[in-house]
């Protein structure tokens, strides 16, 4: 069996906020067009890890980073055009953040910033992204209303549409289902299954079953260390390699 090429490589990553180290030297890689599930209790470094990948971690004061994160073979700490790097990565936050703009402008924001001006191109792209995020039918008649007027679940799909708008190669979702109902969650999960054909997805979630449903491989992160990283059927089996994985997955601790 041929291993698919790697999209992200993380090597011995250590991250500290001031004197407090939150990620203690982890190494793993993410393969092209896979869904990597990341599970683990709160404070285990899941969000910090995502922020290292698109380098938004550097806006937190007092942060100290060691080791390397490589995206497509390029070390993100040394990359020349950090804005291009960030455009390569779509990021969806736990709570939807509607920029104070209309629905249309929210999705068209990133393409406009990278210089797309043509009205018809923008229209097409906005429609495509909203369709991909399973939101188009609900908002197509009110693209000019404020994004913040939508319901929580709709706003979250709007942020997904926005994250897709710069046609990223990698999509990072950080506990996207925290603020939305189960039905909408299932719809988005269907969306993700479609998207995986086109991009690599990192799915941080504290719904263990969500990782089980979607992820090709699952990583169990605990207190800033990788307890286990394997194919999802192994992680969620009766006999994962580490006892703690079994206990966490089955709700015995955590």
């Amino acid at each position, binding site marked *: 069996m041929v291993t698919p090429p790697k999209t992200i490589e993380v090597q011995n990553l250590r991250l500290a906020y001031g004197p407090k180290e939150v990620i203690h030297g982890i190494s793993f890689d993410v393969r092209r067009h896979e869904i990597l599930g990341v599970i683990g209790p709160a404070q285990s470094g899941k969000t910090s890890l995502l922020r290292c990948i698109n380098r938004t971690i550097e*806006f937190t004061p007092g942060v100290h980073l060691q080791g390397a994160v490589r995206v497509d073979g390029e070390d993100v700490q040394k990359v020349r055009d950090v804005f291009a790097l*960030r455009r390569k*990565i779509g*990021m969806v*936050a736990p709570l939807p*953040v509607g920029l*104070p703009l209309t629905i249309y402008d929210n999705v068209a924001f990133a393409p406009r*910033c990278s210089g797309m001006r043509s009205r018809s191109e923008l229209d097409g792209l906005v429609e495509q992204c909203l369709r991909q995020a399973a939101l188009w039918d609900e908002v197509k008649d009110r693209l000019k209303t404020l994004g913040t007027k939508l319901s929580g679940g709709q706003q979250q799909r709007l942020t997904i549409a926005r994250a897709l708008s710069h046609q990223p190669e990698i999509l990072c979702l950080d506990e996207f289902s925290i603020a939305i109902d189960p039905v909408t969650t299932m719809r988005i999960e269907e969306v993700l299954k479609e998207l995986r054909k086109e991009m690599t997805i990192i799915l941080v979630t504290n719904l263990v079953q969500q990782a089980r449903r979607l992820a090709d491989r699952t990583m169990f992160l605990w207190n800033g260390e990788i307890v286990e990283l394997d194919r999802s059927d192994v992680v969620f089996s009766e006999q994962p390699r580490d006892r703690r994985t079994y206990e966490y997955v089955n709700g015995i601790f955590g």
Partner: protein
Amino acid sequence: MTDLAPSPAVRTRPPGRPRWAVLGEQLLEWIIRLCGISAILFVLGIFYFVFAKAAPILVSGDFSLREFLFSTQWYPTSEVNVRYGTLALTVGTLAVTVLAMLLAVPFGLGAAVFVSEFCGPRLKEILKVVIELLAAIPSVVWGFIGLTVMKTVIEKTTGAAVGVNVLNGGIILALMSVPIIVSIGEDALKAVPDSYREAAIALGTTRWQLVCRVLLPAAKTGLLAAVLLGVGRAIGETMAVLMATGHAVNIPHSLLDPVRTLTATIAAELGEAPEDSNHYRVLFLIGVLLFTITFVINLTADLVIRGIRKK
């Protein structure tokens, strides 16, 4: 068998709050309500007293409101030809204020954006302290600078005959308004949630795109408030403009003409006008006029903000 019988009900008084706590809270609520309403009371009170002092002149025969508003002749102490026309004073006030705002708004908002978004934490602390210090300089000191330093600079660079004029007053007022605009504007930018910044940055925006497309639109209400406070300071400022504008009743035709403002006129003449004379009352009427100008400006700005919000 385990004993699952319900435990016997314990008879106690329902936990009520002591009477004094309830009354105390009500009292506090009334005190707070009074604090809130007091602002309205003070504004109405000030308007009433200023207007009451001015009112008798409005009904007296030898005064016309038309002349007061639209005549440029201000001869309040003349023996034979008393004229109370404030047009030149109004124009003087507006000229100095507009010039000050043209200088202070771009400069102040630019500085606010820099302090809030572009500079490092250490420089930011230093700048904030210095800017607050700048805001605390008394206006008479600014007037003094206008009268000495700025006057010679203007005379040397422009060749104007008198260095105390619209330009001088405008620059001094701009310098006085900038610290206010910067500190309020910086607060407004700081109040934009960080999640907006993160979301925009994660979409690959550069710093400038972040500022222009997200932060400025999101903070526009606060920024407008900053500008308004700056305008308020410029219009209401008395001592500095008294010293820096030349204090000559005159409709300016260029930046280098001296003018006189409404505020400076009140400050300079009120002490010498006999109480309850026509002159004295007209000065109070000028106060009412100033009041009206600031009121109109605030109201317009408020409507503009609402318009923006609706959009």
